[in-house]
């Protein structure tokens, strides 16, 4: 699994494509089906291309009641796409995920390994602008 996670993080589109899955299967002497069993079971692993920045909004109860819904509304306003859809430029998508263990700074957005906390409308807007301009690396 660690091999798959590392490969996915290193991949351009943030997912395990079939070629990669086949390679892992061969190297580890297992079937491709077994590899896909792992990929589909663990939430962190993806079998489809992802947006460049996937903004994951924690929606477990501590965050849910710390205005995580407003984060989605802000994002929808800013990005012009509903949850689960990727922006036309392929840069952004957002969706809810369960607890990321940052309940002390909710509401939060997680992008790859970085967590952005204590968010409000302005901060979210600035975050998106900074990501667009490449001012923040994640």
């Amino acid at each position, binding site marked *: 699994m660690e091999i798959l996670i590392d490969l996915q993080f290193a991949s351009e589109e943030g997912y395990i494509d079939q070629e990669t899955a086949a390679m892992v299967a061969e190297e580890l002497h297992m079937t491709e089906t077994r590899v896909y069993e792992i990929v589909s079971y663990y939430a962190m692993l993806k079998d489809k291309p992802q947006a460049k920045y996937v903004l994951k909004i924690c929606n477990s*109860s501590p965050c849910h009641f710390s205005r995580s819904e407003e984060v989605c509304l802000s994002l929808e306003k800013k990005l012009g796409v509903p949850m689960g859809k990727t922006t036309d430029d392929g840069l952004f998508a957002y969706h809810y995920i369960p607890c990321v263990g940052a309940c002390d700074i909710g509401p939060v957005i*997680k992008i790859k390994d970085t967590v952005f906390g204590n968010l409000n409308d302005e901060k979210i807007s600035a975050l998106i602008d900074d990501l667009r301009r490449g001012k923040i690396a994640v």
Partner: protein
Amino acid sequence: MAMKEPVLLKRVGKMTDSTSVDEYITYGGFAALQKAVSMDREDILGELDTALLRGRGGAAYPLGRKWRHLYGSTDTPKYIVCNADEGEPGTFKDKLLLEKDPLSIIEGMLIAGYVFGSNDGYIYIRGEYRHIQAVFHQAVSNALAAGYLGNKIMGIDGFDFHLHIVSGGGAYVCGENSALLNSVEGKTGRPRVKPPHLADVGLYLKPTLVNNVESFACVPAVINMGGEAFLQLGTKDGGGTKLICLSGHIKNRGIYEIPLGTPLDEILYSEEYGGGTSTGRPIKFCHFGGQSGPIGTSGQIKGCLYDYGDFWSHKLAVGSGAIVVMDDSVSVVDYITSVMEFFVHESCGKCTPCRLGTTRLLELLQNLQHHKGRPGDLERLEKMLEHITYLSACGLGQSVSVSVNSALAGYRDEFEACIS
């Protein structure tokens, strides 16, 4: 009852590099291991028994008893596993220890390795904590270089211990110990049917000890101060200090170390800890110990001590140490629906009562949430909760009912008001 000296967090914030063995030793690190290797193994177990250190992952099972079970197992090799798959919403304490004092966890695991003559340890760190995995890798390689891991630890012949770091992949159920072991083995992380106990048939079907991060971090403290002194820090129902995580509508969200037995009012309202609500509204209820823990109404929690025994007598539980505070603007039906969404998402799907049970429960709760409940719904809800509790294979399904039942007990009128 303010903390005189932190026990678990004594090094946090002092060390400039949390992975440095030299700094760790400067602040009292590895003293316990040094002491342990001069002790009789039975005596170490005796100290842990006396300390009444309860498992800090949530189950609160006495660690001494768990260790004795494994000690009595004759099969070899034995494996030492640290559960660092912290995924309970409202819980972020292990993250702090893993990042700020990783060597204390390693020391706890080494003491276990010494007691059980085990040569291999595994730490399963939550996938979402990738940056912390990097810190931990550094700590392991520093310990290895300093001779605190690897072969002939501290020059002692036969004391070999290798620590392997394994990453999770984003599955809450892997925090369940048998699912965690399956995941370490490279399988999909679904729980096993128990018995057999993991102390008899665990990792690679060998006897295995699985403890939480904070539990392992407590072990050096027990050895250093002695079981009796550790017990004295807490209460007769559980020794030591506990890391608690305050979140939700509380002013000072964060992690605090408190002696077990601290009044809950102090935790919630004193400026040193919670500082009251962040919204200025009164507290309505608190959710303790994670999603699978109970909810306590403001009336129920009044005057409680944060202590295993006192909590149990009030139908509450310490669990992982999470305290999610909600003010009076929150509908308990909304809250419980949100909790159930989590369980639906995280149910692994292996056993039907949990997979379908959580889904049906969520549907029913969503109906109630939209005031579309039908007469008899609450009775149906209770029946389903009973089924899922008794028929589910692992702790996830078995504990789904805890929060819902406690909410029903405290706020039945709010649920009834949702029925048209």
